[in-house]
């Protein structure tokens, strides 16, 4: 275990996704800088106990450190720089679950076989293949033809599979969210990002001209009043999803029941826009300083994002706002968002529903989204999120997160739409599946799966 922690945040891997989560361990920062060879806060007490000492209390620490274990007896002697080229990476023969690794054929499949002497319940299925497919469409065709047993189905394909005799659909409430981030960065914020690194900036070359009305929270609230979330849920959520009013929407204790739900009210929307200084011409077109208001909706390409754009065009059109749709490839998406190519930026996913602390990755002043794209920075919010993570008493945490979600609900850095359910298509011959909300952990109870 100690070895796994040390590898996860070794200086050789600055891109490791564990860096942020694990740097809370005492002595981790010094180790990351290469000043020490050991991490002070990690102690091995006996063969079955490890103790981690943190710099400061953090209730979300365990939640954020779901770290896979790496075998020291195999990788211990390998230089961290050469780790990614080690054969073990393609053939992880040491497993802690009920199955043994047999073979990995890159981009084809991973083959697993039942362990002969598993310590817990003996699994019912002897062999498992994980198919590595290049596109969802291929996978769905294979499910339809009975060539695979289980796969996640996109919401807009659920209806098609419901009609198929050999497929069961399992639905599970998700933990991710579906939102549209506003880009309301000010000229000063953009100038700061554009400053060269030597001068304390980030060295970007963003050319965006800010839209002043977006910086007024009343305008953002007006858009929330202009939207009706139901068509979104029907068309892209497979008909089932939980509307949300801030990014803190789970677990139940963290959900503030007193948030503004922004039920659709076009008159109120127009009134708020007028307060900001928006005028309307005879045809009802919203004008800013005499020119029509046009917002650009930015997303990565796909059928579902396109539909979102069309619903937006229709609904915001009713308050006189024109929406243009801009879809880019996924590698170009983040640069386009940072470059200010969108005013409304689609984002879907995350693990918000599992713990309220996740919101700090998105909405605190230093977070990538808030700083590089949205331009949201609220010191009180940052304080509350830090407080919420620093105590483990649920009542105390609740207080912080309720107030924090009220800030998001009022300021609306994003239009919070819903938390989507996830769907799995399962061949009727296969039973025992209990999908978890995090689709990455579908196999958590794999030893209970069976063929009917």
């Amino acid at each position, binding site marked *: 275990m100690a070895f796994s922690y040390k590898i996860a945040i070794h200086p050789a891997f600055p891109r490791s996704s564990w860096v942020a989560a694990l740097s809370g361990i005492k002595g981790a920062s010094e180790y990351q800088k290469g000043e020490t060879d050991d991490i002070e806060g990690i102690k091995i007490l006996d063969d079955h106990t490890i103790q981690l000492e943190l710099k400061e209390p953090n209730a979300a620490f365990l939640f954020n450190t779901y770290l896979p274990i790496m075998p020291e007896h195999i990788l211990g002697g390998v230089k961290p720089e050469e780790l990614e080229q080690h054969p073990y990476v393609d053939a992880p023969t040491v497993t802690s679950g009920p199955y043994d690794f047999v073979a990995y054929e890159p981009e084809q499949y991973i083959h697993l076989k039942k362990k002969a002497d598993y310590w817990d319940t003996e699994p019912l299925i002897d062999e498992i293949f994980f198919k590595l497919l290049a596109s969802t469409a291929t996978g769905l065709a294979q499910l339809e*033809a009975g060539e695979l047993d289980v796969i996640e189905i996109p919401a807009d394909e659920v209806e098609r599979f419901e009609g198929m005799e050999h497929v069961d659909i399992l639905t599970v409430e998700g933990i991710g969210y579906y939102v549209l981030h506003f880009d309301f960065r000010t000229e000063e914020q953009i100038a700061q990002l554009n400053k060269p690194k030597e001068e304390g900036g980030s060295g970007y070359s963003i050319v965006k001209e800010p839209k002043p009305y977006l910086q007024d929270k009343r305008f953002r609230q007006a858009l929330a009043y202009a939207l009706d979330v139901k068509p979104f849920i029907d068309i892209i959520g497979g008909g089932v999803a939980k509307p949300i009013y801030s990014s803190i929407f789970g677990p139940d204790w963290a959900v503030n029941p007193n948030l503004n739900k922004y039920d659709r009210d076009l008159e109120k929307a127009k009134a708020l826009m007028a307060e900001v200084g928006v005028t309307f011409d005879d045809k009802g077109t919203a004008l800013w300083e005499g020119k029509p208001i046009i917002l650009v909706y930015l997303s990565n390409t796909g059928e579902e994002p396109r539909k979102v754009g069309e619903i937006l065009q229709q609904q915001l059109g009713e308050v006189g706002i024109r929406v243009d749709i801009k879809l880019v490839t996924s590698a170009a998406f983040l640069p386009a968002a940072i470059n200010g190519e969108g005013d409304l930026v689609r984002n879907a996913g995350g693990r918000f529903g599992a713990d309220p602390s996740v919101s700090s990755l*998105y909405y605190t002043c230093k977070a990538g989204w808030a700083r590089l794209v949205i331009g949201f920075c609220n010191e009180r919010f940052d304080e509350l999120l830090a407080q919420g993570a620093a105590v483990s008493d649920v009542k105390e945490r609740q207080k912080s997160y309720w107030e924090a979600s009220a800030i998001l609900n009022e300021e609306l850095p994003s239009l919070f739409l819903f938390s989507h359910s996830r769907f799995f298509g399962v061949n009727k011959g296969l039973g025992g599946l209990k999908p978890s909300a995090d689709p990455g952990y579908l196999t958590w109870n794999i030893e209970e799966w069976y063929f009917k």
Partner: protein
Amino acid sequence: MSKYILRRLAISIPVLIGITVLIFIFINAAPGDPVSSMIDPTLGDFSAERMAQARAQLGLDRPLPLRYVLWLKEIVRGNLGYSMITQKPVAYMIGHRLWATIRLTLVALAVSVVIGISIGILSAIKQYSWIDYLSTFLSFAAVSVPGFFLSLGLIYLLALKLRWLPTSGMFTLGQPHSLWDYIRHMIMPAMVLGVGSAAPLVRYARSSMLESMSQEYVNTARAKGQREVWVILKHAFPNALIPLITVIGLRLPGLFEGAVIVEQIFQWQGMGTLAIWAVTNRDYTLLMGLNLISGILVLSANLLADIAYAVVDPRVRYD
């Protein structure tokens, strides 16, 4: 002849360098880079500092010309470099996939040659008959229908409705590998690639055959009282073949191009799927390696066509 081949090989080098320079500029001009594609924006966990650090680690903070020169230096030493995303050697990643694509392309080429030439000759012999009109109609249809559409149609019909063939992949998982299983998986992708490429061949074969049938030596053969089948096979066909060889050689790059889409649809693990993966992930080193290899393959296909031309037609001499 060997002098000619050597000269052609020498010319290939600047051509290849030119190709790589252009591609290097284009892929770097495309928005996004390996770092932006490695970050999952839905996880929120990114910051300006981490992105800059990752760029520096991959050497992306250096000026473009310098990066090209460094890449070229390694290529000259026979090193294709490491993938920016998977950290695996590019040569290994491509080598793993190369044969799958070559097999698919060659089978598709065979399909297109057999279909294209036989139908073309048939419609030339039976000029203005219903066979001729039907073949004209079919070849125009095959040219007009996009490969991906034909693929989806075939999957729907042969795999989902009739259940004769698997929808995709290269073999059935959980069963011992067999040649028959491999062939079953190859039928649809090879058909799509082969048929699309056969259509123009039909037209070339038809006109080339018509031309050689109107030559005087064919009339002479007929006048000598030879049987019509013999006249066609012995006298008309070999001469009609000569211009076709160039056409077939020039079809290879097209097949390679078509393989990119077809492999993706049929989950055929060749260079095409790898190329799409590399493009969407902005894996610069892998993309450069892929383009270099396909550039070499295409150039050598052209060279082979030229050599074959000289072999078939004794009148052609390269000096």
